[in-house]
C-alpha cells in the first residue's frame, strides 16, 4: 500500500510549487535536500528506496511546477534515475531519492564498451548532459540499447562546459576514455527505450510548465502595457495571438493526460512530447513577441523558458522522433485493398 494512497496528481502541484520556491538561491546539494524532504525526488520510486511508489502521472505536476518556477536542478533526470536503479542498485537509488547523491542523464551520444581482460571499459563522447558539473553520477546510453551508470569522479571521465541555450540547468559535454565500470552498473538492453518513453511524458510536462509561465507573463503584459491609449489586449491581433497560445497550451495538457490514460501507449507518449515541442516553442516565442522590446531583454524571464523548451526539444531528439514516428505510422498501414476483398 502506498503511503500516498488516495492522493491525486494535482495535489502535488502546490507542494511542488512551494518546494521550488524554497530552492531559490540554494546550491544544488541543498536544493536536493529540500526536494527530497518534500518527497519529490522519489515520487515514482519504490518505497524500498524511500520513494512514494506513485504512477508516472504524479510526476507530471511536479515537473511542470519545477519548470514553471525555473528550478535550477536536474529534477526530471533525478526522478527517472532513482526509479531506474531501484531494483539493481538499491542503495544508490536510495541515496538519490534522499538527495544524498546527485545524478543526471546524458541524452545524446553513446558509450561504446571495450573488454580489457576481465574489465569492461567505456569510451565515447556524450552531450546534452544537464547539470553534469555538479552531480555524482551520469547515466549514459550504451550502444545496443542498454545503459550504464558512471561515477563522475571515475578515472577517464571528463566533464566540460558546453555551448547551449539553457541557463537554468546548463548542459555539459562528457568524454569517456577507458572508463572502468563494474558489471553491476550496466543496465540491460531495452532500458533506454523505456527510459526515453517516460522521459518524453515528463519533457512534455516540463514544456507545459514553461509554456504556462510564458502565457501568464504575456497575458499580464498585454493587460497592463498601454499603447495608443489602450491596453495591448484591446487589439484583436494581440487577443487572437494569445488565444492561439491558449489553444496550444491546452493541447499540450490534454495530450499529456491522454498519454497517461488507459488508452495511452508509446504512440500517445511520443505524440505528447512532439505536440509540446511544437506548441511550447510557439507559445514561448509568441510570449516574447507580445512583450515587444522588453521581451528581448535579459530581465524578462520569457527567454529563460524559451531556452529551456528548445533545449528539451533537442534532449528528446524531436526531429529524429517525428521522423521515426511518421515512418512507423506509415509502415503499419497496409496498401489499399478493397474492403472485404
Amino acid at each position: 500500500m502506498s503511503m500516498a494512497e488516495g492522493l491525486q496528481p494535482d495535489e502535488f502541484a502546490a507542494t511542488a510549487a512551494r518546494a521550488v520556491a524554497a530552492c531559490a538561491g540554494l546550491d544544488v546539494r541543498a536544493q536536493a535536500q529540500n526536494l527530497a524532504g518534500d518527497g519529490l525526488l522519489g515520487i515514482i520510486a519504490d518505497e524500498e528506496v524511500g520513494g512514494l511508489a506513485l504512477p508516472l502521472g504524479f510526476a507530471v505536476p511536479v515537473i511542470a511546477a519545477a519548470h514553471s518556477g525555473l528550478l535550477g536542478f536536474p529534477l526530471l533526470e533525478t526522478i527517472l534515475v532513482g526509479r531506474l536503479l531501484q531494483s539493481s542498485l538499491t542503495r544508490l537509488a536510495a541515496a538519490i531519492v534522499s538527495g544524498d547523491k546527485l545524478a543526471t542523464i546524458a541524452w545524446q551520444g553513446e558509450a561504446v564498451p571495450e573488454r580489457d581482460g576481465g574489465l569492461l571499459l567505456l569510451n565515447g563522447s556524450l552531450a546534452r548532459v544537464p547539470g553534469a558539473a555538479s552531480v555524482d553520477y551520469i547515466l549514459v546510453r550504451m550502444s545496443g540499447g542498454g545503459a550504464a551508470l558512471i561515477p563522475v569522479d571515475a578515472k577517464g571521465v571528463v566533464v566540460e562546459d558546453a555551448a547551449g541555450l539553457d541557463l537554468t540547468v546548463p548542459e555539459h559535454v562528457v568524454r569517456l576514455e577507458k572508463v572502468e565500470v563494474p558489471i553491476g552498473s550496466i543496465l540491460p538492453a531495452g532500458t533506454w527505450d523505456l527510459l526515453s518513453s517516460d522521459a518524453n511524458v515528463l519533457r512534455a510536462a516540463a514544456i507545459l510548465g514553461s509554456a504556462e509561465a510564458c502565457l501568464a507573463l504575456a497575458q499580464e503584459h498585454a493587460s497592463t502595457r498601454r499603447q495608443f491609449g489602450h491596453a495591448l489586449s484591446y487589439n484583436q491581433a494581440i487577443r487572437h495571438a494569445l488565444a492561439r497560445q491558449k489553444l496550444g497550451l491546452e493541447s499540450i495538457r490534454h495530450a499529456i493526460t491522454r498519454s497517461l490514460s488507459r488508452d495511452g501507449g508509446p504512440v500517445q507518449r511520443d505524440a505528447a512530447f512532439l505536440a509540446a515541442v511544437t506548441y511550447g516553442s510557439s507559445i514561448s516565442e509568441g510570449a516574447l513577441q507580445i512583450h515587444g522590446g522588453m521581451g528581448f531583454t535579459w530581465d524578462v524571464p520569457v527567454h529563460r523558458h524559451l531556452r529551456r523548451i528548445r533545449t528539451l526539444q533537442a534532449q528528446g531528439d524531436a526531429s529524429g522522433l517525428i521522423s521515426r514516428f511518421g515512418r512507423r505510422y506509415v509502415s503499419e498501414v497496409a496498401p489499399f485493398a478493397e474492403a472485404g476483398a
Partner: protein
Amino acid sequence: MSVLEAVSTQSVAGENLTGEAYRDAMHRWLHANLPASFRSDSAAFAPPTLQQSVAWEAAMYRAGLTGITWPQVYGGHGRSLREHLIANQEIGRLAMPESVNSIGKELAGPIILAVGTEEQKRRFLPAILEMRNIWCQGFSEPEAGSDLAGLRTRATHGDGWRINGQKIWTSGAYRAQRCLVLARTGPLEDRHRGLAMFAVPLDAKGVRVRTIKSIDGRESFCEVFFDEVEVAQADAIGAPDEGWAAAIRVLEIERATNRMYRAWRFENELRHLISACKADTALSAMVADRHYAVRLGEVAVEIEVLKAHVETAVEALASGDKIGARGSLAKLYWSESHQRFAALAIELLSQASLPQNPAIKVARRRFEAIYLAARAETIYAGTTEIQLGIIADRILQLSRGK
C-alpha cells in the same frame, strides 16, 4: 432502396451491454450493415440518395447508434456521454456519409430537450431520431453572419406568430421538413435581447427555398425566404429571451460534443491516404521517405491531440464539470488541422504514377471532395476568428479596457 434492404431491422444492437462489449456490438453492427456503396474509401462508392440516407440513419438509430444520450421517454437510448463517445469512435473509423439530419440530432434536438415544452419534446424528438423529420438551421442572414445580434428576420405576435425575413447558408433546407428559425421579436437595437426560436414547418405558406451551388459543386446550401409565414404558438421553442439564453448554453456543449467522431474519421482518412499511396509505385517510395513521413507523422500527432481534446471534454462533462467555452478549442483545432491535412492529401495524390491505379482513383475522388469541403470548416459553426474571440473573451478573459 435495394442497397439497404439487407440493413438489419433488429432493435438496439448493444442493448444491455456496456464498455468494450458495447463497443464491440456497435463495431460489428456497423461493419455488417454499412453498404459498400456508402463508403467513400471504396471503388463501389456512389453518393447515397436522400432516401437511402434516411433509411440508413433510421437503421442506425434502431441499432442504438444515434439518440444515444437522449432520454428513453423521447425515443432516445438513455445512455451516458461516455457511451456516446464509444459509438462515435466506431462511426468515425468507417468512411461513411455525413448525416443528412445532423441539425436535428445535434442542434434542434438538444435545444428542444433543454427548453422545449413536454408536448414539443414528444412531438419533435422521436421524429428526428426516426428520420421522419429532417431539420435545418435558420440562424445566419445576409446582414447577420457571425454577428447574430444583427438579425433582421422578424416575428410578430398576434394570434400565433407571423414571420418575415430571409435566412442564408441554410444547409439542407431543400430537403428539410422543419427549420429552427431565430427571429427578432423586438427592435433591431435590442441586439441579443428579444430573440426567439421557432420550429417552422417548411411546407408552410409563404416559405420559399432556393439552393446555392457551393465550391464542391453541390447544391446543399440554401436561402430561405419567409413571407408572412404563420407559425403556431405550439411551434415557438422556449420563451422569447430565456429561450435564446438557454440555447446558447446548449450550443456551448454542442460545440464540444457534436460530430464527436471527427478525430476518428480524420484518422480513417489519414490511413486511407497512406494505404492508397502504398498501392502506388511512386507514392509508396515518397511516403517512406523522410520528408513525407515527417509530414504524415505530424498529422498523426495532431489527430492524437484532437482525440485528447474530445476525450477530455467528455470526461469533464461526464464528471459534472461545466464545459464553458472550451468547445471552441476543439473546433478550432480540428478545423485548421483538417484543412492542412486535406491540402497534404491532394499534394501527395497529384504525384501518383501513370496510369492511375484504382486505389488512386478512389482516393483522389474522396480527398479532392474533402479538400473543397474543408474550406468551409473554418467558417461554419463559428469562424476561426469568432472562436479565437471566444477563447480570448471567455477562457482567457482578456481585458478590453480602454
